[in-house]
């Protein structure tokens, strides 16, 4: 059983290094900043949480610590992107993207279209999803579905160190605005990752994390370790689950998802976002519209319910999808 968490694709002439998800975030940015001097990093408290290496490696011209003005420093990055730079804007905690959403949606996502293609907006918006750690509702959002509704953005949710490195580097090289949703629950996860400074994973390509034949489990972002654990248990029950990670939510790799469902005939989608209008909802709609005849049973969504994230750990641990939830959803459609 191929598990790319242990065996990432690597270029022959390069070795691998054992990197954490956080190492991959830092290394991807460092490599791109070394490669292209138009890449700059702006954000709040950059030196905290892994940015120390970047602050030490580049001068203040290219790594700028910002006052707490999310909407305007995001817009500043967009203005710079249209005039010769390739900024990475670090929006720290994903709940703060709401403050920056005016500039992200009304300017970054629309300006190329609204100017008839006169300009490009090559910018990366990085943001971290800090949840399951008792931060309460205003620090615990997983808001990628919110931005999926704004056409013109590309949206990435990497789940492994290798995917993070390859996708973040592709995002920096992309000529469109890309939002990358990082997950603090994955920071410490380690994996062998290619040292190739041109190791890229294309935006818009899903990855089959584990091949299987009885059910497709589409896993969004940091659900992956939990979904793989569930598939181990299911394997012991005699159910072979195919685990597919879209990796990019916009544009969605519909073909890979549809092909997997065509093979298995059953679909469970696991997403840490709130249930209504989740990424899982959109994927369910796509499969229902385009692959309905492949389905032998109804699509199941395993998501966080439409409740705010409570502070108390006793409450918080009850809201996110679990291994048991995934197994239950799979068993329901056997």
């Amino acid at each position, binding site marked *: 059983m191929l598990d790319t968490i242990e065996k990432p694709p690597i270029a022959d002439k390069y070795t691998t290094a054992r990197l954490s998800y956080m190492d991959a975030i830092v290394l991807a940015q460092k490599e791109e900043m070394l490669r292209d001097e138009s890449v700059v990093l702006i954000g709040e408290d950059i030196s905290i949480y892994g940015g120390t290496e970047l602050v030490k490696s580049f001068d203040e011209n290219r790594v*700028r610590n910002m006052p707490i003005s999310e909407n305007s420093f995001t817009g500043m990055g967009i203005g710079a992107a249209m005039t010769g730079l390739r900024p990475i804007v670090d929006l720290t905690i994903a709940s703060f993207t709401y403050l920056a959403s005016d500039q992200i949606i009304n300017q970054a996502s629309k300006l190329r279209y609204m100017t008839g293609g006169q300009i490009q907006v090559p910018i990366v918006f990085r943001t971290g999803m800090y949840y399951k750690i008792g931060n309460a509702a205003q620090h615990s959002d997983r808001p990628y579905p919110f931005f999926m509704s704004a056409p013109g953005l590309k949206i990435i949710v990497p789940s492994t160190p290798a995917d993070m490195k390859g996708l973040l580097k592709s995002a920096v090289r992309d000529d469109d605005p890309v939002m990358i949703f990082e997950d603090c629950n994955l920071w410490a996860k380690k994996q062998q990752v290619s040292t190739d400074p041109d190791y890229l994973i294309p935006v818009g390509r899903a990855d089959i994390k584990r091949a299987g034949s009885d059910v497709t489990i589409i896993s969004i972002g940091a659900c992956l370790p939990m979904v793989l654990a569930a598939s181990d248990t299911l394997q012991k029950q005699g159910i072979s689950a195919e685990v597919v990670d879209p990796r990019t939510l916009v544009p969605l790799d519909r073909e890979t998802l549809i092909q997997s469902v065509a093979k298995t005939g059953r679909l469970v989608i696991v997403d840490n976002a709130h249930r209504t209008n989740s990424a899982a909802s959109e994927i369910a709609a796509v499969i229902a519209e385009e692959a309905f005849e492949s389905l032998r049973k109804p699509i199941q969504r395993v998501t966080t319910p439409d409740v705010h994230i409570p502070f108390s750990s006793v409450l918080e641990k009850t809201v996110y999808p679990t291994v048991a939830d995934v197994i239950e959803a799979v068993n329901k459609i056997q």
Partner: protein
Amino acid sequence: MSLEKTEHFEMYRRMQRIRCFEEAVKTLEVEGHLSIGQEGAIVGACMALRDDDFITGTHRSHGHPIGKGAKLKPLMAELLGKATGICGGRGGSMHLADFSVGVVGESAIVGGGIPLATGAGFSAQVRGTDQVSLCFFGDGASNQGTFGESMNLAAVWKLPVIFFCENNGYAISTSVEKSHGQPDIAKRADGYGMPGVIVDGQDALAVYRVTNDAVIRARKGDGPTLIEAKTYRFEEHCDNLNILIPYRSQEEINHHVTTRDPIDIYQASLLAMQKVTQRDLDTITSEVKLEVDAAVKFAQESAFPDPADIYQNMYSSPIDYSA
């Protein structure tokens, strides 16, 4: 720095271009946010800039690209939603952004262009050029968060940005008096650590002088300036606005139109300087009228965009799923 005769002519030409362009728009069946009355502020500011400097503008977007030197045909065609429009018919009256003359955006989100202009200045600083970025915004935008946030960012990093407020007295129907704690927006500059200058926006030469000072300061690396040009919108906010409760008096409008017309004021000062004759100015005006007539003809004769192209320019690099 004083202007050469040819520069005076160019300034006069651009002011007349805006006026004639807008007068032509009034005769067309299009929604327009007209810049009539604000030509002195716009062109006075733009004449202090180089071709490679950046500007951002507002929903009242017709004047800014013309002031920066844009060609009229694609602008007029855009107002008619034609494929030959500067934005291919995707922008319209509030978004006449012509990137070829340095217009980085005309934002219909009030205050939305202020961070973008700040970013263009940031870009120039990082890239080590001496370009500057000038941000047009109105009195209404000065009450948005982006105003204070961006002013502070530019001051912190000494960015080469000129924050240029066209204070025309009204955010649609809401007067400065009823929306600002004190009426002089330029006074806010002190709170952010930059110079603030008030200038008569109807006096194009005065606007040019204070903007030029701000540009010199920005190019030297001394940071941003806030300029507040007191100006006046002669026309309604836009066409087809149903104003049931008047927010300004006809007497007030008449006063500005008859005694505070920026073109009349500039023309008088030009003739007083004896640099030019009335005939010179009449020649320019005639040429501009021909130019505007040709733009209208071009716009009217151009084709509409093909609905099959509606997805064009959604992305620079769309994903090729067949690969």
